């Protein structure tokens, strides 16, 4: 039996040294030219006119405004999708209702549909000539080509992240913990805060990180509804494009380096969360 196992493992793909070496080598090579070199290039290009120019271009009023708007969008999007994602995950994993499966499929639409299409749809609905937008226009409310529109499409584009992280975990954990808590007399809020939340804490944080990363970096949908008004409705990704089209390559890369930095920090935080989670699972 054991000798059989041995020969089987000898025949496993990738067990021969040359297969192993060339696979790892190829992976590293591709990672380098596809990921690492462009990342380095961003920072290299950002500093091509020196550190002084780098910081002056970042401190330009329009750039500062773009940074502020981007942070505002993320700060509004994340809490909305945090609450919405938890509600959604709770509903589909804890209740049985007709259309539950359909709902789980529908929630992936923002992933499946191109963000540009999402942007156009919002424009069609909420634009000044749109179905809902024309009515809102009469009430003197403008959503499109203004920051509320940007927040709306960003919420749309990022809404599956939290729910997608929570659903598999909550399905796997089952309802027993919550049933035990409610039998012991816990109220709905006590149940959520003392039993459910600690159980889903790490997945929730993970979902929030992904939501935040996407909210900061979203381009397609935002570019349709923003109207690109410099210093008013320009988010950081849009600003990068605008600067580049103005032949301010170094300034564009300086702004881009900020986005790249946020992305790197996010990944670092994500790695830290994963490490914490793993450690907790092994010690618990």
């Amino acid at each position, binding site marked *: 039996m054991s000798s059989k196992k041995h020969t089987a493992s000898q025949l496993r793909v990738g067990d021969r040294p040359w297969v192993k070496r060339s696979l790892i080598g190829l992976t590293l090579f591709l990672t380098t030219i596809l990921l690492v070199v462009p990342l380095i290039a961003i920072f290299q290009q950002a500093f091509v006119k020196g550190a002084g120019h780098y910081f002056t271009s970042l401190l330009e009023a329009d750039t500062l405004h773009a940074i502020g708007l981007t942070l505002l969008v993320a700060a509004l999007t994340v809490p909305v999708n945090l609450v919405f994602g938890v509600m959604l995950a709770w509903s589909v994993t804890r209740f049985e209702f007709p259309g539950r499966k359909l709902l789980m499929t529908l929630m992936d639409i923002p992933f499946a549909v191109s963000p540009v299409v999402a942007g156009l749809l919002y424009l069609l609905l909420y634009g000044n000539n749109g179905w809902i937008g024309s009515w809102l226009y009469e009430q003197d409310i403008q959503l499109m080509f203004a920051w509320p529109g940007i927040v709306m499409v960003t919420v749309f584009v990022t809404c599956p992240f939290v729910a997608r992280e929570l659903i598999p975990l909550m399905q796997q954990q089952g309802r027993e913990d919550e*049933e*035990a*808590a*409610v039998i*012991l007399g816990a*109220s709905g809020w006590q149940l959520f805060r003392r039993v459910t939340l600690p159980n889903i804490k790490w997945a929730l944080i993970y979902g929030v990180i992904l939501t935040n990363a996407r909210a900061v970096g979203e381009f397609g949908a935002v570019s349709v509804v923003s109207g690109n008004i410099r210093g008013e409705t320009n988010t950081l990704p849009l600003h990068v494009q605008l600067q580049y089209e103005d032949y301010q390559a170094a300034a564009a890369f300086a702004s881009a380096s900020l986005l790249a930095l946020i992305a790197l920090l996010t990944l670092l935080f994500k790695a830290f969360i994963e490490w914490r989670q793993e450690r907790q699972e092994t010690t*618990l």
Partner: protein
Amino acid sequence: MSILIEHISKTFGQFQALSPLSLDIQEGEMIGLLGPSGSGKTTLLRIIAGLEGADTGRIQFGDRDVTNLHVRDRRVGFVFQNYALFRHMTVADNVAFGLDVLPRKERPSPSEIKKRVMHLLDMVQLAHLANRFPSQLSGGQKQRIALARALATQPEVLLLDEPFGALDAKVRKELRRWLRGLHDELGFTSVFVTHDQEEALELSDRVVVMSNGHIEQVDQPGALYASPNSRFVFDFLGNANVFEGKIENGQWRNEQAHIVLPKGAAQQNGQLYVRSHEFTVSETATDQANLPLKVVAINPIGAEVRLELSPVGWHSKDIWEMDLPHKVFDKKPVEKGQTVFVTPKAGYFFAQDAKQAEPLHW
């Protein structure tokens, strides 16, 4: 507290999980709900707890109607098969949970809660584990903690869903005895679900045998064993061998095999159920029976030797089992592959289509 269950029924989609059934549980009684999976026993337990709502019927605790009372307000203790301990809380916090979530007016002071928790942990003999997390405990320890947690709020009704199902045989036996002791000492009313007939017979004051959403029989363990009132109960309470016989010249015949009817037995076709210890073995056929069987396995189990036998020249749906005391076996050992003849001493006869059995003795 007594529990009165009246005409409770439940369907899940198209599936009738419980047909209307009624059950009267006395105060301080320990009731075992016994049945195969899908028999509705867990559904019934969850309806008593309030975790599921019944489609029809009424439930009463004592003289309080709880049919429409929320789980939270029923104040029952519930123990899950997989413990359902809160993994991020220490053992002590788990046990304290039911007290911690009480409304402020009813909640004991923190020091009082601590005292009660330690008392409960002492009771389950695990006080030294108070600061551990559930994942650091063995299965048996987890189940004791789950029990302590369920008892913290001093419920008068304790419900247990396959409480020992996930434990190994030795721990299961130990916990069973310990639970029975606790039940007798504290005097709550217990209902537990099990698919293990031995567990149900050993632990319960009365056993409720269920199948397909019906109650088949409710009786004390001894009475249940002595007079099973249906084929199902007979089958489920186990270790019965079935001889399918057609009447021919005062004998039940199945191909080459036959059994002579005892005096006074009605001459009808049907099935003879014989328990695994109600046989004698011989090397030749007897006047009373000609039942040749080939020995396919010999397993010493505890005080007995179990033979597995397959029919020779006649037909049976299942393999036959016989339990012989070691003494009897050692006197006349048989070997694997050998053909032996068995003779029933007592049995239960179900005439074709009859629900009731007729006990027989030779």
